[in-house]
């Protein structure tokens, strides 16, 4: 038996022994996930226990180095762990922008002190992070940001405004792009700062979305003092960190195309009924079949992308493809869910409709092709960097 086969067997046994039964069902919605942080209230004992045993093993971040709270697993081992968790339907023990975005950026660009300070707390779910990128008026043109940080000797003084900061009202810390040289070209005067959301001068205001939910905030900074050691990487080189981190964000959002959830054919059959062995709505059946083909294939494209990255065959801009395609696919899926549910899917508040779960989820997907770089921006990136078309 190879080492990897042994690892798989042991992992399976360990998960079997340690993952509580309640954590082997998909979460109901975003609020049912474990996000951690200073003020986190666990939904139940199982959620708490699952986070603790996984964090103790470093498996909230299996491929990070052990010294920073990670599991120290190889890429192959990490893949096996994920496969086994999926097979057993184990939930993610911890959802976190710290894990998905800041962590990889700190591992690459942070100094030793920063890694020691922040990574273990991310791994254990002690600090919940939010991302301070977008600004009103900047949108897709991220680099035109205006929030400024002035050098005041021992600290930076931050003033400005961010928008689309996910769960900023629940976050403990923020990683934030700020302008440190207003005279430089727009990509060159930007720096990457970390600071505590409890610092005086930080205010958040949730944004009401068309889904009726408020997962994002406007965030305001008024004379916020940030210690100088919280600058990541080089002054005025924050755009390098930002670009690296955006790639991780795109992978994450693109992955949403896989969607999980119940098969569309089942949803539709239950809602619409079956005649002569096929869905009673033949045109909807055709669209679902075509979606299923594409979703099936895209899952394989995600798998291939992982293997290409492992073998260094992937173009550095490949994540733009995954982000674009995955989010458009997810939007298509939810359009088809809505078409399958018909008028039942239009109810917004009833218990019967789980308080409008379906239409709210449908509307939520419309942001997928905007957040983390719009579909148009991804196509621009592919045109320029992969196809090398002029002027893109």
């Amino acid at each position, binding site marked *: 038996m190879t080492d990897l086969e042994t690892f798989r067997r042991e992992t399976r046994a360990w998960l079997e022994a340690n993952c509580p039964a309640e954590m082997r069902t998909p979460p109901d919605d975003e609020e049912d996930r474990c996000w951690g942080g200073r003020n986190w209230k666990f939904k139940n004992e199982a959620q708490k226990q699952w986070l603790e045993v996984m964090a103790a093993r470093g498996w909230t971040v299996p491929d990070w180095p052990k010294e920073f709270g990670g599991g120290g697993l190889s890429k192959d081992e990490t893949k096996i762990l994920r496969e086994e968790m999926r097979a057993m339907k184990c939930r993610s023990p911890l959802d976190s922008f710290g894990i998905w975005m800041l962590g990889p950026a700190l591992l690459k660009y942070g100094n030793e002190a920063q890694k020691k300070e922040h990574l273990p707390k991310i791994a254990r779910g002690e600090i919940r992070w939010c991302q301070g990128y*977008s600004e009103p*008026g900047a*949108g*897709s*043109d991220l680099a*035109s940001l205006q929030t400024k940080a002035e050098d005041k000797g021992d600290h930076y003084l931050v003033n400005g405004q961010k*928008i*689309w900061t996910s769960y900023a009202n629940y976050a403990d810390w923020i990683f934030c792009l700020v302008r440190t040289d207003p005279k430089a070209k727009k990509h060159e005067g930007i720096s990457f700062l970390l600071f505590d959301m409890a610092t005086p001068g930080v205010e958040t205001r949730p*944004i*009401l*979305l*068309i889904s*009726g939910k408020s997962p994002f905030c406007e965030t305001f900074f008024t004379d916020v003092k940030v210690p100088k050691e919280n600058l990541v990487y080089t002054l005025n080189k924050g755009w390098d960190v930002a670009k690296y981190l955006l790639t991780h964000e795109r992978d994450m959002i693109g992955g949403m195309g896989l969607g999980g959830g119940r098969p569309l054919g089942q949803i539709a059959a239950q*809602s*619409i*009924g079956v005649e002569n062995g096929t869905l*009673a*709505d*033949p*045109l*909807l059946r055709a*669209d679902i079949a075509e979606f299923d083909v594409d979703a099936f294939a895209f899952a394989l494209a995600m798998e291939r992308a992982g293997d290409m990255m492992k073998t260094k065959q992937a173009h550095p801009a490949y994540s733009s493809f995954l982000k674009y395609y995955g989010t458009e696919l997810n*939007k298509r899926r939810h*359009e088809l869910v*809505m*078409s399958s*549910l*018909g*008028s*039942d*899917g*239009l*109810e*917004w*508040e*009833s218990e019967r409709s789980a308080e*409008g779960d379906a*239409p709210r989820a449908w*509307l939520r997907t*419309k*942001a997928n*092709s*905007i*957040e983390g770089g*719009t*579909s*148009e921006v991804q*196509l621009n990136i592919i045109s320029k960097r992969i196809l090398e078309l002029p002027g893109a």
Partner: protein
Amino acid sequence: MALVLTEEQSMLRDSARGLVADRAPIAHLRKLRDSRDADGVSREIWKEFAAMGFAGILAPEDHGGSGLGHVEAGVVMEEIGRNLTPSPFLSTAILGATALKRAGGVRSGDLLSKLSAGDLLLALALDEKPKHTPKHIETKAARSGNGFTLSGAKTFVVDGHIADLLIVTARTAGGADDKDGVTVLLVDPKAKGVSIERTIMVDAHNAARITFDNVAVDADAVLGEIDAGAPLVEAILDAGRACVASELVGLSEEAFDRTVAYLKERKQFGKVIGEFQGLQHRASHLYCELEVTRAAVLKALQMLDTDADKARPYVAVAKARACGSADLAVREAVQMHGGNGMTDAIDIGLFMKRARVCQELFGDARFHANRIAKIRGY
């Protein structure tokens, strides 16, 4: 008949536009929604509609109506669509008036007079499945003495919780999917055994689920003929479909106009985003789709007025097209508005929500394309 509005119809459009934009703009919808208004529509504004002749737009003049046609009704629906106005217009002035007019008789005449005055609200209780399947009617009206006993459940009944009378399709003979054996009944929503649950919808417009539990209904409640109500149902539906298609045309064009305006105003990468050819081509394509739909919808309305017997495929095409192009219009509107389009603070999302409901109402694009295939025999 030329496939453009006549001068009179254009004038009607201008006055409808004035009234609706002035009295019932999107702010009106927001107010009803945010105050959780019990009616979900303004009865006061409905009285103003009636005073303009809109409540009785399809009703004959000798019953206090305007005696106009579907083109004129569609003109009003279009403005309702532009302003996302919650209004009894569809249920009462289109569906209700068509039912009463086609059924005929003294009682219908009296009701039409009340309806035209704005004193009678109606609602059509037809659908029983989550997807529009008009041929499927399980609700039973069993003969009982001189009348019927009605039992069953209806869903997606627009204005069901505020109607003064319900127009109910029921089975008086045959099995759930038979064409024969359908009877249309006028039912008092306050009658014993009727329970009405208002359902709060994604678009903040009115809908209800209604159950009938052994409801006693008089013999004179029958609209049209007993057991042979299917053609009446189809006539009501075709009027409804063509008019909902008009609403979608208005809604789509308003969403499109706002999007084009945004493209000329919003800056990114040092340019107005309307300068990007990627967006230009998509906007122009959408313009074309909307023009094609507008022609199809106007023709369907004209056919209902001039050659109703042949209108069926025209109506199917109109509703299919209107659903399809509205769907594209609101998706493009939200995407092109970017993050702003995702917020409740601006109106774009409201267009998407309403478009979704109008798509499901009386059959979506797939339902009607499938009808075309059946009509053409493949």
